[in-house]
């Protein structure tokens, strides 16, 4: 047998550390699409309101925040309309949390399929992130609708050119959620402990992100912690774009977040490649 023969596939125990097979993922794009469709369609099967739930969730959350934090606790929203302020925060945060939460279960939730059929494993977390993007877009439309209504009734809104950054913010949150989620899911195949940590960790994480309190309300050491949080610049920018730019706003934070995201994502791919080959033995 000659060595220069063409093989379509060569499987060896250990492969290179950084291997991102775009071609293969592209070949399975139909599967990616089917998974996205499955996620969206199956979520609200056998419900009366169906896709309306996409709207109800953020509205009720923002309403609750408005009543509890805005009116009862009387927390500052930098003199912006309370409802819109919270809606902006929860829309972004839900999207990020959704990406992180659902990708962090990739290996464990799909063990049944992964154990029986091969396809590029990355398809699974990717599909989850894409369906989260779709959910986000729907909720974003809701936000824009509320914004427009308020804009014509309230003078204290200064939409500005930071809005051009919105698509970039969406991408950033998606990739960060995907990266962190993949890292968590890779470790949970062996150490289940992380699963418990992540479910309430995300909730706690929200409190050091300016979702409820504006950045201006954090002081001293807390301010440093919140500033170190890579989600802070994203949410601050998002709010600044629609509600008006605060005095202490600086776009520099976004560079930090971008760098963080790139590092996390590369690390995630690295770990993912390592784990996907043999996670079936340890899951």
């Amino acid at each position, binding site marked *: *047998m000659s060595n220069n*023969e*063409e*093989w*379509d*596939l*060569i*499987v*060896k*125990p250990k492969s290179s550390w950084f291997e991102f097979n775009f071609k293969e993922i592209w070949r*399975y794009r*139909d*599967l990616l*699409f*089917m*998974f996205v*469709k*499955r996620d969206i*369609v*199956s979520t609200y*099967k*056998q419900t009366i309101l169906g896709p309306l739930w996409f709207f109800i969730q953020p509205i009720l959350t923002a309403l609750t925040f408005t009543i509890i934090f805005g009116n009862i606790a009387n927390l500052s929203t930098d003199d912006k309309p309370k409802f819109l302020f919270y809606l902006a925060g929860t829309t972004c945060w839900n999207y990020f949390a959704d990406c992180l939460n659902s990708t962090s279960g990739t290996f464990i939730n799909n063990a*049944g*399929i*992964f*154990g*029986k*059929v*091969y*396809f590029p494993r990355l398809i699974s977390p990717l599909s989850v992130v894409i369906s989260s993007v779709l959910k986000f877009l729907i909720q974003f439309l809701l936000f824009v609708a509320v914004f427009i209504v308020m804009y014509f009734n309230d003078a204290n809104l200064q939409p500005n050119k930071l809005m051009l950054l919105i698509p970039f913010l969406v991408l950033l949150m998606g990739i960060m959620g995907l990266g962190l989620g993949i890292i968590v899911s890779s470790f949970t195949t*062996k*150490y*289940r402990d992380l699963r418990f940590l992540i479910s309430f960790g995300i909730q706690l994480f929200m409190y050091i992100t300016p979702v409820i309190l504006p950045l201006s309300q954090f002081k001293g050491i807390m301010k440093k912690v919140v500033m170190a949080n890579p989600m802070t610049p994203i949410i601050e920018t998002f709010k600044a774009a629609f509600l008006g730019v605060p005095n202490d706003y600086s776009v520099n934070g976004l560079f930090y977040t971008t760098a963080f995201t790139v590092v996390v994502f590369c690390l995630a791919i690295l770990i993912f490649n390592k784990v996907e*080959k*043999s996670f*079936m*033995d*340890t899951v």
Partner: protein
Amino acid sequence: MSNTVIKVENLGKQYRLGDIGTGTISHDLNRWWARVRGKEDPFLKLGEVNDRTQKGISDFVWALKDVSFDVNQGDVLGIIGKNGAGKSTLLKILSRTTSPTTGSYKVKGRIASLLEVGTGFHPELSGRENIFLNGAILGMTKSEIKSKFDEIVDFSGVERYIDTPVKRYSSGMYVRLAFGVAAHLESEILIVDEVLAVGDQEFQDKCIGKMKNVSSSGRTVIFVSHNMAAVKSLCTKGILMSKGSIQYQGSMQETVQEYIKGMHQHSKFEINLKEYRTYKSSIIEFSKVELENLTEGSNKIYFNKNIKINFVIDCFEKIDNALLDCKINTIDGVELIHAMNQYSGELHSMDIGSYSLNLELQNNLQPGTYNLTFGIHRADGRTLEYVENCLPIEILSIASDDSTGHKYDFKLGYVRANSDWRLQKI
């Protein structure tokens, strides 16, 4: 040869036994430290041959070791072996659901694996949506599925339910639909596990028929099964696995024979009688019941081969003209056959002491599983000892010499009558 489509070289797979998660961090760190110093993985050395019946010394085991073989285009390769021989591990590696610990393999063409029917079916989605989803998971493109959609629906016969969520399907419809999708896969290499062989007779025939079609169209199939009849009728080449390595490679016919030969090695099957004793006395009891001429320490008996059972009887009181009997039941409890020493006109008397008793039964049973019951009674019919359904036996669908084997995958009735057919031209 240039038409080799799969080339497997020294494939090995090591598994860790016991609870995964405890102590793994320290093992991982050890491994990492060894690698940093450029040394061998400390846990790879510990592996030993996989024999599940023996307690090993280490926590690591080689489920597969030094497996090498080639598959040519158009081959239908059957992989057989006992449970735990490494067949499924090999399939898992070939279908890329897990990676080998050592060795490598190369493949030409697209591989599709069917280790399960209906992988990824979502209960909330309709039949139509699931066809697309499942097809995509198995590696088909959307246009491929679209072009075969009608065929799939037709094959599975669930047209009326195609827009109903599959959670409302009967289990039969579910399996049919799932297999319908799988059967229309068009990959150059198809890997099939025996899970496909579940389902009713019609479905099994359909599976086998479809697989024959696949292989006759020049595609390559790798098939794992315990069903010797199916393997023999389907496959051209065979691999016999044992304890993680290849024990024999050759034509399927020879491989099956080799497998059967191997089953001769251990030949006794013993049971704990206490659990089955429904009548007892202080006068007499069976202290041992042993099945002879079986296979791999189990309860399997070749088709058409006499059933031999050895007993040890402990007699504590003198007993005259005892009746000894044996009853064969189906697993559903139907009483099929009754054998008794009295039928042949002999009764047995025993003094205090131990006796050995040998029973040989003519085996007219059709392939399947049966339960045996044994009893000792006084001449007046009073039962002294009775062990009910204590010995399950399995009649195989193959005969020991392979020539008079039960050739077909179906069986009618439980017992073959000895019959005499005379044909004369008039």
